[in-house]
């Protein structure tokens, strides 16, 4: 069994299983916890709605913080959207998802995929640059750096494989698939779970503040 067969076969098989099991574990493990009732009188009659609205209203820093946070917010949005477009918009990725779920949709032209992938990589590099240059703002631990490497490696190896740079194509493709598998395995047990948790943590803050009559 060569490296590509190994990567496409047992490695991605187990990585997907760990991803699904780990994500549901971590999600339910937080959601089923109690939050402790706030026994005070609610100051706002429509508290729940305001809580759910917070999920969206926190999508952009509020007025007084906008200037100070504008750069990193824009960079982060570029990174997140570009990565999402690359993951669901490129033909081989759609083929992979089709083989898992049966759904398919039209793909982006390859040149657009390369351009968007490059934007994702550049913004990711800008973000790590900011993190490294401002240690007092970002109290980073090892997990943050490991996460960055595991997210950057699929982007880099994917671009290299498509451009037929670096190792031979089948080796580069195998490395790309292996790096994605590493990301899948790391995902549920790291800060990357924010991709699911952020909805609930924003809603939770919104609910508790709205109960107290604070609008955020």
């Amino acid at each position, binding site marked *: *069994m*060569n490296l*590509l*067969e190994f990567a*496409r*076969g*047992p490695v*991605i*098989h187990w990585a*997907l*299983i*760990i991803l*699904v*099991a*780990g*994500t*549901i*574990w*971590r*999600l*339910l*493990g*937080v*959601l*089923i*916890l*109690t939050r402790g009732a706030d026994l005070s009188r609610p100051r706002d009659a429509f508290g729940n709605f305001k809580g759910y609205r917070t999920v969206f209203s926190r999508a952009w820093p509020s007025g007084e913080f906008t200037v100070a946070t504008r750069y990193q917010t824009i960079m982060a949005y570029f990174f997140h959207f570009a990565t999402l477009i690359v993951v669901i918009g490129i*033909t*081989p*990725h759609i*083929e*992979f998802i*089709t*083989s*898992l779920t049966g759904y398919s949709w039209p*793909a*982006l*032209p*390859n*040149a657009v*995929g390369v351009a968007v992938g490059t934007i994702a990589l550049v913004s990711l590099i800008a973000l790590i640059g900011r993190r490294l240059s401002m240690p007092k703002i970002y109290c980073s631990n090892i997990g943050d750096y490991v996460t960055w490497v595991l997210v950057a490696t699929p982007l880099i190896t994917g671009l290299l494989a498509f451009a*037929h740079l670096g190792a031979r*194509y*089948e080796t580069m*493709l195998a490395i790309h698939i292996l790096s994605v598998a590493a990301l899948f395995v790391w995902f549920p047990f790291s800060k990357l779970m924010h991709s699911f948790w952020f909805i609930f943590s924003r809603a939770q803050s919104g609910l508790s503040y709205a109960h107290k009559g604070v609008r955020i």
Partner: protein
Amino acid sequence: MAHNSTLGELLRSQGVSRRAFLKFCTTTASVMALPATLVPVMADALEQVRRPSVIWLSFQECTGCTEALTRSHAPTLENLIFNFISLDYHHALQAASGRAAEAAREEAMRENAGKYLLLVDGSIPTVKAYSTIAGISNLDMLMDSAPNAAAIIAVGTCAAYGGLPMAAPNPTSAVSVSDLIKDKPIINIPGCPPIPLAMTGVLAHYLTLGTLPALDALGRPLAFYGDTIHDRCYRRPFYDRGLFAKTFDDEGARKGWCLYKLGCKGPVAYNACANVKWNQGVSFPIQSGHGCIGCCEPGFWDNGGIYESIARGQFGTGPQMGVAGMVGAGVGAGAALLARSKKERAAAAHRAAE
């Protein structure tokens, strides 16, 4: 075997002009990526070479490799060369049969010990009874013939890497030539079947220079197996632009778009089909509208469906992911409930302490 004429004499007797012979040498040298200065050397060497003894052992094979080699619409120089080498043993092509055939093989091996070329076709079952010739198992015949051979050429994917017989569940415990022979130079010329020019090019190289051509990590001559089909495919611009045929009869297929989504293994298949092509350069599978199946790669039969693209994984993950989800839910819910009960116990202990 009676006549011992040189190749030059044989070609002249067949009416092949010197000009045609030189054209052949030039073409072969260029296909093998040999420098142009070697063309006169090759011409002289081929002219003088006497009939080398070649023994072709057919094991667990379908005879497709022989068919590819010998099928031609018109007599070609490649075929003449093939007729020139003293093919002392070949099941499909030899006139003798039975004991006479085996006697011819043994005599050729004795007379040309150390100098004959062994061409092996088909995989070798390690459970000996599955394939025998004249009562001799394939395994024994190979191990007897190999020590005195000058070199071994494994023709076709079966001989080179095990091929179809070795595909799961490998009922005959088949192996390739290089799994058994470790102390002889082996050239693998894979393909199902291999391109005829790859065979004759390697033979011409060996006859001219007395050495094996440059090989890659899988023992294949780089001249024919150095690039992937994808690198030379004429449909590559459509791949780059993301224009794919989705079925065999849709608009994309009619317009000749890339066949990646229909399972073409071109990006991971190393062969010369896309530039040398088949039937003297008429066409090759992709040009005829069917994706490459990667028939020159080891284990290609077990590498997923022929119509499943490379991007599709090889796993039966659907039900297993469902089970994984449930296991995760169980663990997560269990962890949360445990935390809740700990919290309640701590609260109860706090109340009791007050």
